[in-house]
């Protein structure tokens, strides 16, 4: 007799037949029928119609049958709550059964039936089972408390189950302790401030004792819980470490990783000069290497974690480079991760070996892997200066292979090498130029064009090369077009005589024939710069670019600290904080290492994930910035930290301090919106603009974005001929009409034209450039209310990677007030749902350029902290939108 036959019944009238069989008098037939029902349920058929008949089979002394009926109940009770009550009696009776296995089975199953009416009946049996004489029942009851809490948290608190659960931490049976710890940890996660897991030296001691005795899984629960504890001093820290280190030899990799997490965290508290500190560091390496002999899936998890560990403590694995060499039969996901770690560990000492390996990888079959290997060679060059020459020659060898994607990848990284070591390797340009025709990917074409433009003076036929690209200008991607525009302007500034025709051609292509606003605006600005002040143009376009940094891909320090606290978990696999992928209040709390000096204000979005050009847009999305880098070089990202310093003196850019300013937006820019008139800020001080002072503010009135400016003439002479122009920006803001200043501006006269948003101002004296920030809420249009259905579909449709989650602290509005407030800023509430005392507001807003942002705002009564999840197809705007929320709600 085989059970597989149950999977094959597809007859009509099957349900009817099953009904008859379920009510049969013969026990065997009954059991067969229940099996058929479960098989149907597994493959996804709806067998809920059989509910009463199946439940009738519950009263049986056949344990196997009973378990099958329970399985059915767990699946369908929710859809038939009234009938589920029928089962309660049996459960209550079973909880009194002399057989502990049956008692445990009953309490385990009851907890899985998520019907409110049943939970009431569950309390008494659960209370008994928590104090049961049999440890098997107690350990099952401990988990049941967590189940009940998930259904009805209030009930668990009212019934005092939490205290009973806490008592179980002192239980004599290690498995009961482990399950109690797991249940408490889970409950504590949803009550961040409850201090439920009251960890103190006594409980820690109990946990450490149980650690030696419980199952491998129990050890994981306990270690994960220990990791949340902060020892009082370095001595306690050391003694815990000493008791945890033996776990590093466990066969279960998860036990090892959780132990590593505890050690990595508590090590922070140990003085660095302590002998034990060094010993511990050395003890960590062998188990981490051993993880690489585990099954491939675990290797993957281990490698993602090792990636974090080497960023935090490179010394642990610095001698272990060889174990990360790729094996022929590694799955591709393991290969790619190993490559990352090889670069992290690359140093002067091992670079020769690493390069030899990378060169091998570049000839492999898998395209992604090959590309990553080529990129890795470039990163080695940037990281280890001594190896740069060797890396460049390796890259040249690879270019000689003429394998298309290898060549393109190589050119992209050589561009970065040029930026890192200016005036060193330009001799290879000739070789690169030979491959011009084979480049078909935008990134490679853009990189090549950048190189030609940047070194135009050394390339004899630079004009011919660029001209050849110009032929198909309109078929190129924006990235290439922008690069080509800039490169030709650079060429013109370097060799003005021969290339006048070319520059005019590209400027007209960019400004007149293109409908891409970014391209047009950049074209116009060059045009104006070149026609008004070629010297300034030179200073801007050929400005010296700051060196690119060695490790642009490092995880930002606060995030790294948080991820270290999550070693072994999904967060460490995704390299994202749990709040980025976990729904609800769980995991929103940000963990930090003990003794960390980084404050949450250092937190920034992970920029390294964005392609460099996007970064530029991202910054511009809230800072209309003219002074930044009109040169628009492709490696813009690195230039921002130092932006004000490298800007030519003739350009005024108050408030364009780059990233830092941008992320302080919350305070400075999140000004009151709606009917209130925010104060104006000085954008262009008089002393920088030959007496013209401009102050202003952005507002949104009657569906129109307005930039209100006050122009004050502080000079001695009259100013006339005002005009205005914007640099390109993400949202395509452009002046709606010319700057209208009808009367000449006499000294010390101040006018206040109500005018639309603008950025570069010209008068009879000169052109002045300045930048000013505008609140993103300006861009929210009035018709930003999405249809419910559309909202649901869009929310699902947007990939999860685009979702970001934030917390708004200390906000004391209720959800309705918040909703009203937001509405006045064109953030519309589409639906409201209340789940367990938590209000969920689903909101939408639309930006002027048609980008929709969807939001889910969670407000818990009595909790001043809101959680907001934002989903948008252009995730770069999320940060700004969040800051706007904060500003509006707190105002």
């Amino acid at each position, binding site marked *: 007799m085989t059970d597989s036959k149950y999977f094959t019944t597809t007859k009509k009238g099957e349900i009817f037949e099953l009904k008859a069989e379920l009510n049969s008098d013969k026990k065997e037939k009954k059991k067969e029928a229940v099996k058929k029902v*479960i098989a149907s349920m*597994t493959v996804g058929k709806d067998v809920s119609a059989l509910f009463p008949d199946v439940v009738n089979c519950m009263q049986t002394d056949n344990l196997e049958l009973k378990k099958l009926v329970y399985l059915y109940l767990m699946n369908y009770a929710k859809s038939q709550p009234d009938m589920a009550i029928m089962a309660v009696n049996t459960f209550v009776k079973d909880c009194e059964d002399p057989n502990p296995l049956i008692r445990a089975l009953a309490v385990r199953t009851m907890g899985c039936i998520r019907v409110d009416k049943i939970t009431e009946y569950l309390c008494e049996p659960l209370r008994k089972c928590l104090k049961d004489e049999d440890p098997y029942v107690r350990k099952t009851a401990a*988990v049941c408390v967590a189940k009940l809490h998930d259904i009805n948290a209030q009930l668990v608190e009212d019934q005092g189950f939490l205290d009973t659960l806490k008592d179980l931490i002192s239980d004599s049976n290690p498995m009961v302790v482990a399950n109690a710890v797991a249940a408490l940890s889970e409950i504590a996660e949803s009550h961040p401030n409850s201090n439920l897991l009251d960890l103190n030296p006594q409980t820690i001691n109990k946990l450490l004792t149980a650690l030696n005795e419980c199952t491998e899984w129990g050890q*994981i629960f306990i270690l994960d819980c220990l990791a949340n504890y902060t020892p009082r001093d370095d001595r306690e820290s050391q003694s815990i470490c000493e008791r945890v280190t033996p776990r590093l030899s466990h066969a279960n990799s998860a036990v090892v990783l959780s132990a590593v997490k505890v050690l990595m965290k508590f090590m922070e508290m140990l003085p660095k000069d302590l002998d034990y500190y060094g*010993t511990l560091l050395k*003890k960590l390496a062998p188990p981490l*290497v051993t993880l690489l002999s585990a099954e491939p*899936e675990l290797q993957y998890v281990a490698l993602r974690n090792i990636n974090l560990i080497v960023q935090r403590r490179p010394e642990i694995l610095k001698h272990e480079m*060889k174990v990360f060499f790729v094996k022929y039969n590694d799955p591709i996901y393991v290969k790619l991760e190993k490559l990352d770690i090889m670069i992290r560990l690359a140093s002067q000492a091992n670079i020769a070996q690493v390069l030899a390996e990378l060169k091998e990888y570049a000839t492999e079959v898998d395209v992604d892997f090959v590309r990553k290997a080529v990129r890795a060679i470039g990163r080695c060059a940037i990281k280890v200066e001594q190896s740069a020459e060797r890396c460049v020659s390796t890259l040249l060898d690879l270019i000689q292979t003429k394998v298309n994607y290898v060549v393109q990848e190589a050119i992209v990284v050589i561009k970065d090498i040029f930026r890192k070591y200016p005036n060193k390797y330009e001799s290879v340009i000739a070789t690169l130029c030979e491959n011009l025709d084979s480049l078909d990917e935008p990134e490679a074409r853009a990189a090549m064009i950048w190189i030609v433009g940047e070194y135009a003076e050394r390339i004899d036929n630079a004009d011919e090369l660029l001209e050849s690209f110009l032929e198909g200008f309109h078929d190129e991607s924006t990235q290439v077009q922008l690069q080509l525009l800039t490169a030709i302007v650079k060429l013109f500034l370097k060799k003005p005589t021969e290339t006048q025709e070319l520059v005019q051609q590209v400027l007209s292509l960019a400004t007149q024939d293109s409908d891409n606003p970014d391209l047009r605006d950049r074209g116009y600005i060059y045009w104006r710069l070149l026609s008004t002040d070629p010297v300034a143009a030179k200073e801007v376009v050929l400005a010296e670019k700051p060196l690119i940094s060695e490790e642009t891909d490092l995880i930002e320090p606060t995030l790294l600290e948080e991820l270290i606290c999550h070693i072994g978990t999904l967060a460490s696999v995704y390299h994202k904080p749990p709040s980025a992928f976990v*729904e609800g209040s769980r995991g929103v709390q940000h963990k930090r290492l003990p003794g960390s000096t980084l404050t949450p204000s250092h937190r920034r979005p992970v920029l390294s994930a964005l392609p460099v050009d996007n970064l530029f847009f991202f910054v511009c999305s809230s800072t209309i910035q003219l002074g930044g880098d009109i040169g628009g070089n492709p490696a813009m990202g690195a230039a921002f930290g130092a932006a004000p310093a490298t800007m030519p003196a003739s350009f005024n850019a108050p408030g364009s301090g780059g990233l830092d300013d941008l992320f302080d937006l919350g305070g400075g820019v999140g000004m009151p919106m709606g009917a209130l008139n925010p104060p104006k800020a000085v954008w262009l001080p008089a002393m920088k603009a030959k007496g013209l002072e401009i102050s202003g503010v952005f507002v949104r009135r009657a569906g129109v974005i307005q930039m209100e400016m006050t122009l004050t003439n502080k000079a001695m002479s009259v100013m006339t001929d005002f005009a205005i122009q914007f640099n390109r920006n993400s949202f395509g803001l452009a002046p709606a009409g010319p700057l209208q200043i009808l009367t000449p501006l006499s000294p010390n006269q101040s006018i206040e034209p109500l005018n639309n948003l603008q950025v570069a101002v010209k008068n009879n004296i000169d052109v002045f450039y300045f930048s000013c920030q505008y609140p993103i809420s300006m861009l929210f249009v009035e018709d930003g209310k999405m249809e419910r259905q559309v909202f649901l579909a869009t929310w699902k449709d947007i990939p999860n990677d685009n979702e970001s989650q934030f917390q708004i602290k200390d906000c004391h509005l209720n959800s309705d007030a918040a909703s009203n407030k937001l509405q006045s800023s064109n953030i519309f509430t589409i639906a409201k749902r209340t789940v367990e005392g938590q209000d969920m507001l689903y909101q939408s807003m639309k930006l002027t350029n048609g980008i929709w942002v969807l939001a889910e705002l969670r407000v818990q009564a009595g909790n001043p902290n809101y959680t907001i999840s934002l989903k948008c197809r252009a995730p770069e705007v999320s940060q700004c939108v969040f800051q706007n929320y904060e500003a509006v709600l707190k105002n």
Partner: protein
Amino acid sequence: MIGGLFIYNHKGEVLISRVYRDDIGRNAVDAFRVNVIHARQQVRSPVTNIARTSFFHVKRSNIWLAAVTKQNVNAAMVFEFLYKMCDVMTAYFGKISEENIKNNFVLIYELLDEILDFGYPQNSETGALKTFITQQGIKGQVSTKEEQSQITSQVTGQIGWRREGIKYRRNELFLDVLESVNLLMSPQGQVLSAHVSGRVVMKSYLSGMPECKFGMNDKIVIDKQGKGGASDDAGKSSGKQSIAIDDCTFHQCVRLSKFDSERSISFIPPDGEYELMRYRTTKDIILPFRVIPLVREVGRTKLEVKVVIKSNFKPSLLAQKIEVRIPTPLNTSGVQVICMKGKAKYKASENAIVWKIKRMAGMKESQISAEIELLPTNDKKKWARPPISMNFEVPFSPSVSKGPHLEGLGFKFNVGAHAKTPL
């Protein structure tokens, strides 16, 4: 924690579906099928995030096992659990196949109910599970009160892997040491990295609750700071060559704190077969064989391959059951082989030439040459040139012959060891 566990066949049909958490819906079952099983390209990661839900999967032959969650679970634990789940199923009904899973679906549901509670893994030792998950239904009623409490105390107890009251007429303990040498060579033939990973596999048929204890002899140095230093000196002073073990891991029956403090492996063994320990060593690896391949492309449709193997151990030792696998390109149409020793055959289904030699003494050499004819193809994809692999057994492998000494507690030992060394 784990929100649900699904088992699929190769077509993506659900064979088992067990949901533990309310946040996992039925649509998760389909999401995995559509996005992973039916995905066009190769699997790029064992962890997939689809619509805010994370899927962990492992594959056993044609069967996919997927664990699903919406929370920040311990990822390493989930994979360990999935492997364990496979072990448990294998122990109950043998090979994991669609047929076996369908035939045992009731049992699997029962197991899943027991070893995963609300997504938290519980005792998953087959020894203990088999005492009360028997598929005989009625047993719950028949067993006496003592038996019941014995079961529960074992399932929850410190020694969850062994039941009490085991009796054998003959107490026996078998120990196998399986070593694999992993070797990475540069194209120039230079050894880039080599390590031996060894497994000590035990089969124990012992009565009662036996305390077993292995000592490490003083030649073994575990490269862990604090102890390594001292023993290293001891090794040197006695003038013997020491064997350095980089790291070792143990089955959960071994008392780790005792190993940490006394360096003795003490444990109460599970009944039957289990892996007691694994170790890894990188120092002074003597390669038992050298394999020297020569590949020459003669035109577009012909390949000449010559492989020489040299045994590199004491002439008195004998390697047995040597098997060398030489991969061939996918477009091979015919192969002619000549070998000096043993038998060689081209196996088209495996894309390899398999060369078998019954035994070979130390410090000997043998060779094979083959002419491979190729079909002309337009396929631009290069042949990835997979490495040649080699398997053999040596009654006492080079590193084990100097390995741990065994201190039984008066039991009769029956020790057999062999090494497998793929190159």
